[in-house]
């Protein structure tokens, strides 16, 4: 491609990006921009009221806290290891600075990469743990790093710390003012990145995984991989903050990166607002105010302020948690919206272009699953043809749900094989099966409590994306934006199929049970499946909802989907099914191509 053509394309892409940004500009964005501007000029306005080195330390703390916001706010994972990542970045950068002549900014980057490595390992270790165990595990990691620094003087420099040579930073004399401005810029960029990620596939998937693991797993969300990525990204930012802060401090201090730092960073995130991009920064400012209060209390009591500070921080955190978790930034946004409600979001009603339907046959041969002496499933074989509905019926305990779980990958079979077209699925994970074209809805009608109806469907489309990676999302490449438009169109089409298009912007929590059932079907459809496994969709449905479901299944058959329907409602089965398999004690008792009841 000629240089001129490249320039034209780039210009077009930039204009598109600017237009997109203007479209999605909100009052919050304006407030954030003003806040960043004020932060940049703060040293000149404050006139020495707060020393520049204190401001710079605070800026790097805000950067580390914003990084932690990735884990806590985006992934919903309570990491208490951010202090360890900051410390890793600091000490690696310090050693590189001492042992090489590399530029200061590169040394900080190397520190960040080392921290990301540790974060990746930590994320891998806790990838499938619940929140409590994650908190405990990461807390132990922080202690491990702190103890290692204390026990290894060659690593930490001992009580005197590791003195760091002073080197120009981005060509500038590394004064505290330069460090402060750099910290502000990096924190702003990181917050911007948080916003971009939250709105993109990565953020949606993480939000879904944090709000309902089962439902997210059913939609093929690669939760464990995402959690590892979140840890690594969070640690990278923390390590970058550490690698720069150590150059401000001119000494890597082994006492500065212990559990207390991890605790303070978590307090900052929770108090400021984990879900808000600038919430952690606000939390750091609140910590600064606490520091002043601690100093005043210490002066009154005649003891050091450091005795009061952790206590006050803990009290503040308790207050935030026990009053319903209303952090500062979300509370401020809520208060602002009372005076100036958010304008209605721009309609996404683009022409719905449904993805080409995939027509594949699912074959399961001699599936078996035993739980001890009990055979839940024994020698079950079935074939799901495109454009047909196969109903699986039987009394409670006959093995219907077990068959669904074996087919979807939630349970590994003890025997048998599963094929989708020519591809064998038997050993694939649920997420891999969803990508291959096999998806399931859950009986319990779970939903992602904080997402809108539209965002639910979008979670499904993430399985089909090629250009939705983290980096492309951050940079908002033309391919990402183009694919985004397609994904949104497909999500809307899925909502139209199930009759929820008009509810697109409503919170999913406002839907009825039947509405949520249809929403999960829409999310499953958004994954562009060839095979859909549906578990008792008619349970508790009113007559008009049943009619809706019948119409949906008829439409899906027409589209060429192969559907396996587990049901107790025989009338519903008769209305929609092309074939009925009856299970009894884990075996196929009968197989009827035309249902007769």
């Amino acid at each position, binding site marked *: 491609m000629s240089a001129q053509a490249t320039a034209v394309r780039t210009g077009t892409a930039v204009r598109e990006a600017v237009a997109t940004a203007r479209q999605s500009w909100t009052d919050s964005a304006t407030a954030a921009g003003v806040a960043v501007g004020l932060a940049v000029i703060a040293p000149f306005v404050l006139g020495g009221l707060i*020393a520049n080195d204190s401001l710079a330390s605070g800026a790097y703390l805000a950067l580390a806290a914003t990084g932690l916001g990735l884990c806590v706010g985006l992934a919903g994972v309570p990491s208490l290891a951010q202090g360890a990542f900051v410390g890793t970045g600091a000490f690696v950068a310090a050693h590189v600075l001492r042992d090489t002549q590399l530029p200061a900014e590169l040394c900080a980057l190397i520190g960040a990469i080392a921290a990301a490595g540790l974060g990746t390992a930590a994320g891998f270790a806790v990838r499938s743990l619940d929140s409590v165990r994650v908190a405990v595990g990461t807390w132990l990691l922080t202690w491990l790093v702190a103890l290692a620094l204390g026990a290894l003087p060659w690593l930490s420099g001992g*009580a*005197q710390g590791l003195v760091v040579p002073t080197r120009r930073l981005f060509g500038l004399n590394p004064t505290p003012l330069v460090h402060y401005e750099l910290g502000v810029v990096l924190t702003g960029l990181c917050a911007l990145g948080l916003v971009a990620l939250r709105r993109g596939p990565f953020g949606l998937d993480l939000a879904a995984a944090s709000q309902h693991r089962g439902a997210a797993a059913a939609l093929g969300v690669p939760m464990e991989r995402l959690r590892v990525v979140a840890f690594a990204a969070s640690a990278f930012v923390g390590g970058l903050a550490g690698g720069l802060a150590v150059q401000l401090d001119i000494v890597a201090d082994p*006492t500065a990166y212990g559990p207390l730092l991890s605790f303070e960073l978590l307090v900052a995130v929770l108090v400021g607002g984990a879900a808000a991009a600038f919430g952690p920064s606000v939390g750091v400012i609140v910590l600064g105010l606490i520091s002043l209060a601690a100093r005043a209390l210490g002066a009154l009591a005649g003891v050091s302020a*450091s005795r009061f500070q952790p206590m006050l921080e803990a009290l503040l955190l308790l207050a935030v948690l026990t009053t319903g978790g209303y952090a500062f930034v979300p509370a401020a946004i809520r208060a602002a919206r009372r005076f100036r409600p958010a304008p209605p979001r721009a309609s996404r009603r683009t022409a719905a272009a449904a993805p080409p339907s995939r027509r594949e046959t699912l074959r399961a041969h001699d599936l078996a699953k035993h739980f001890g002496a009990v055979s839940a499933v024994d020698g079950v074989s079935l074939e799901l043809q495109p454009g047909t509905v196969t109903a699986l019926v039987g009394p409670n305990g006959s093995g219907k749900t077990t068959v669904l779980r074996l087919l979807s990958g939630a349970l590994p079979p003890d025997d048998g094989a599963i094929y989708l077209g020519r591809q064998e699925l038997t050993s694939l994970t649920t997420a891999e099966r969803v990508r291959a074209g096999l998806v399931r809805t859950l009986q319990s009608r779970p939903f992602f409590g904080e997402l809108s109806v539209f965002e639910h469907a979008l979670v499904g489309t993430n399985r089909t994306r090629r250009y939705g990676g983290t980096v492309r999302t951050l940079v908002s490449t033309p391919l990402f934006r183009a694919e985004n438009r397609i994904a949104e169109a497909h999500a809307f089409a899925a909502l139209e199929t199930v009759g929820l298009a008009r509810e697109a912007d409503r919170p999913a929590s406002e839907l009825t049970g039947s509405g949520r059932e249809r929403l999960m079907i829409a999310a499953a459809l958004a994954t562009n499946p060839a095979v859909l496994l549906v578990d008792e969709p008619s349970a508790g449905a009113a007559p008009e909802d049943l009619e809706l479901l019948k119409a949906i299944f008829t439409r899906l058959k027409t589209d060429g989907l192969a559907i396996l329907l587990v049901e107790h409602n025989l009338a519903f089965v008769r209305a929609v099914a092309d074939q009925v398999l009856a299970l009894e004690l884990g075996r196929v008792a009968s197989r009827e191509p035309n249902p007769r009841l």
Partner: protein
Amino acid sequence: MRATATVLVALSFVATGCGHSSSASKQQTILVVVDAPFSQSPYIGNTIGNGVRLAAEQLNAQTLSAGGANYRLRVLRLDNALSPAKAVADTRRALREHATAIVTDGTGVDATWRLANSKHIPICIAYQGGGGLVNPQTRPNVFRIAPTDHGLAFRLAEYLVPKRLKIALLADDSDYGQEGKAALADAFRTLPKSVAARITLPSSASDLAPQVLQARRSGATALLVWAQAPALAKTIVAARSAGWSVPIYTTPAGEDPFVRQQLADHPSWVDGLTFASGRMTAELGPAPWATFEAAYETAFGTTTVGVKSHGRPVIAPPDYAMYPYDFVNLLAAAVQQAKGTNPAKVLAALNQVSTHGANGDERGFNERNHEGVVDDDVYFARFSHMVFRPVRDDPLSSTLPQINQVR
């Protein structure tokens, strides 16, 4: 006539008063920043802070003049919490506030000296004795008035080896212990036959019986413990509770009230504990020290150890407060020599002036030496009934009087 005289006298008083106030308005400030671990080690922090404050108050009472101006000393206490990064932040603050000097326990000096040196601000270490902290050639603004690890280690070796003891060297895993271990390695380098074992004491261990047993099995006939007060106390407990009456020698950590507090239930276990420290009195006799101690106690009260000797409360003499006290007096002399507080001139003058220290000893530095306590001024004292007295079997110590430690 009388009335006129009265008025004239009154007017003269007024004139004098006016003159005073106008000269008072020319009063300038010498800011001395104390950067010490007040929160983490209150005993050390307050000792240093009080020593500086006492000297400042005494100098302010006398009116310090230099270069035609009067000076008043102001003391600013900052807590470094044993953190080098905090020490750097405190040094930056000291520079912002135009400090004339910084007095520290030694935390973070490896990082702070360069910052302070950029503005020619002297730093005086008043506690840590580690090697490498002070070097007049490479760190021209760093001074120390405190016994050095080198001095303590060599004096201990000089004292113990002639006794033909088999010494187990025990050092804890703190930086204090490890630096002491290095100093002892240097002192005992040519005396392998005198060393029965070299053992590390884990600071976090609640019981040091295994390490003490290891020392006993090595055939040691004496323990030389270089550790912080808690580890030292645990070592004594481990030895004595096992019925081992081995003589125990140690560093100034032995003088820390914590050791006696931990052993308050077994005062006899403290008997015989011998420690090395900087001498409190000098060749001029105990009078200067007594004056200093009285002034210190008037200003800050006595520091009670929390134990009793023959039924009377034991106090801790403020010996380590002498060092920062002496430095402030040296600083005042340097300001007078420099005729002002020009930092470069004051720093240069510190290499030239000398004063009589709190104990009467001459204190001073020069371009080749920034150590205010020579190795030979290390003495030894032994505990008996919770108070200590100089030993009689060391040439220096035998010349020193016992300091009264009960009230």
